């Protein structure tokens, strides 16, 4: 969000480039965030926030696609941290869940992974990114990404394999 709360205006080629990137990447990011967070509405909010941050920083960003993916990962982490904090701290009368039509074993299994593992496995298998690319997105060392991927797959295999 722009610090001033006011929208940032891009003009000319910058505006065109931003729009093109948005149209190319937004839906994918929403789906990635959906797999990580488990909520489509939340995924859209976080994805829009990530693009809004890119919009604000546009002139100084060399790799807009990488920037917005990293920004999304940060937002997913913040969202999960806040959710954990609030659920732990506050006694809610009713749990809030997305109105899913039926149990989704994949999403349930993903939700049981620590956020970092979940992020890695989603970028790997839905996003198709390599280990070095995921390391760059998440800001983690490649070794941690490999380790996280291995552990995530081990856990998922136990839950999803027939």
């Amino acid at each position, binding site marked *: 969000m722009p610090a001033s709360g006011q*929208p940032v205006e891009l003009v000319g080629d910058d505006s065109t480039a931003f729009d093109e990137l948005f149209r190319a990447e937004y*839906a994918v990011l929403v789906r990635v965030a959906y797999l990580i967070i488990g909520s489509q509405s939340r995924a859209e909010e976080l994805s*829009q926030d990530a693009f809004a941050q890119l919009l604000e920083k546009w002139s100084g960003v060399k790799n807009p696609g990488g920037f917005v993916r990293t920004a999304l990962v940060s937002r997913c982490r913040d969202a999960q941290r806040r959710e954990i904090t609030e659920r732990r701290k506050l*006694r809610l*009368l009713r749990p809030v869940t997305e109105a899913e039509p039926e149990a989704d074993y994949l999403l349930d299994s993903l939700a049981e992974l620590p956020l970092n593992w979940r992020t890695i496995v989603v970028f790997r*298998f839905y996003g198709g990114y390599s280990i070095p690319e995921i390391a760059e997105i998440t800001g983690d060392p490649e070794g941690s990404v490999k380790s996280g991927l291995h*552990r995530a*797959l081990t856990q998922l295999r136990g839950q999803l394999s027939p």
Partner: protein
Amino acid sequence: MNETPDIDESSFETSLEQQMRTAVATVDPDIEQALRAVKGGASRQSSDRGSQWLLAVAAAILVFGGGIFAASRFSGDSDEIQVGDSTATSVPDSNTTVIDEALDFEQLEAITPLLAREIPRLSNPLTGGDAVRVDWLLLSGEVGTEPFRFTEIWADDGRAFALSEDGTSYELLESDTLVARRDTLGMAGSATQWQSEILSVGGFLDPESASEAHQRDRLWDDASDLLASGTLDSDQRAFLFDRIEMQLGATYLYVPASFGTDLIAVVWEGHSDGGNRAFLSDSVNGKPVEYSIGESGRPSVSYEAERVTLDDVLEAGPWLMVDEVADVGVTVDASGFSYASTSVGVTGVLPFGSPSESAILSVSDAFGQPDSGTVSTQCLTDSVGWGSLSLSIDSVSDTIVGWTVRRSRSEGPVVTTADGLGIGSTVAELRAIYPELIIEETTLGWESIDGPISWLTSGSTDTDIVQAMWAGETCVFR
């Protein structure tokens, strides 16, 4: 070790990819609408959306006579419940349940069945919802049973606040559950607008004081009092420090690694006396300590500080940022320990008897490579350590057989028991958990070694503190 054939692994990974693609097949966001929202500045934290929400709220107040109201999604016919002198009415096909008179806590509970009819996700005012649900504050149990009425609800720079009748302001937090948090310092609004906004809120700040510097000093003092009250948990403290940092321009938030999460220092530059000010929310003697570093560079301590001096603060480093501390942790008990690092998504439980090699690898995944290690020529245990935590390894069985925690200058995980006891905890806190604790003077100092966990303290009085703790088999020279 994974002995699954490669072909099975490949099949599973292919299947996983396919399952993910199936799961997102119905996720079809409106790209153009989203693009307009982002470029138009109508993000979920924009003030525009907040203003829309504010107007809707104001309209609801004007139309229905004010008082507390709640929002939830309904479909179908209108419904109403009479509670005392109040009528709670859900407005059909809207996000609003209106209550025309203030309700107290018990009365709000009576209308819960009405509120419970909603689609699970609550209306969020900061994403364009039509109204705000403030009753969650009561339903969460935070406010208690005192009746109150919100007299003002406003949005500022994407944040939503409500003012209760007694002058206390609440920040309504954006979340799927929409909860409100008491804004006890009256820090509503953004830094640039806070002075005028807070003057209208009342509460801690003196509306007759026009000086911004004075306002900030008062805010600092109130923050100090709140921290010293000991009523905040770590999440609330982190929230408060966020606000201090934002409102006062404090630039450093630290938690000394060796003292655990209860000791937090905030260094605020630019105090009105021309110097810096640091605040320890919990000192080693359980009392708050505040000191200033004036332009001369010499510290002056303004609170009681018999046991804590600036040297203690400096010596207590290295300092970790609060977020880092929140991310990692070790919980120890008499039979082993568990650990978690949310930043790398690693958790584990290691009881005594665990093979040391895999244990060390696992913990290293969470906290990085060990930064200390000893091979003892006089004990049967070697050790390997991360910051204040050392694991004892039986050199014959090659298993983890003990742990030791002591103050350390190096970075590492925060280590406490499940009850929150750790380095820096007071003897009073120890005795609250272990009433039968006996602390005796030994060659090491003051020790309690009768219980499942051994403690080394600075003395035997309630205000003395834990300096080291250990369990299992360790190497201690007496």
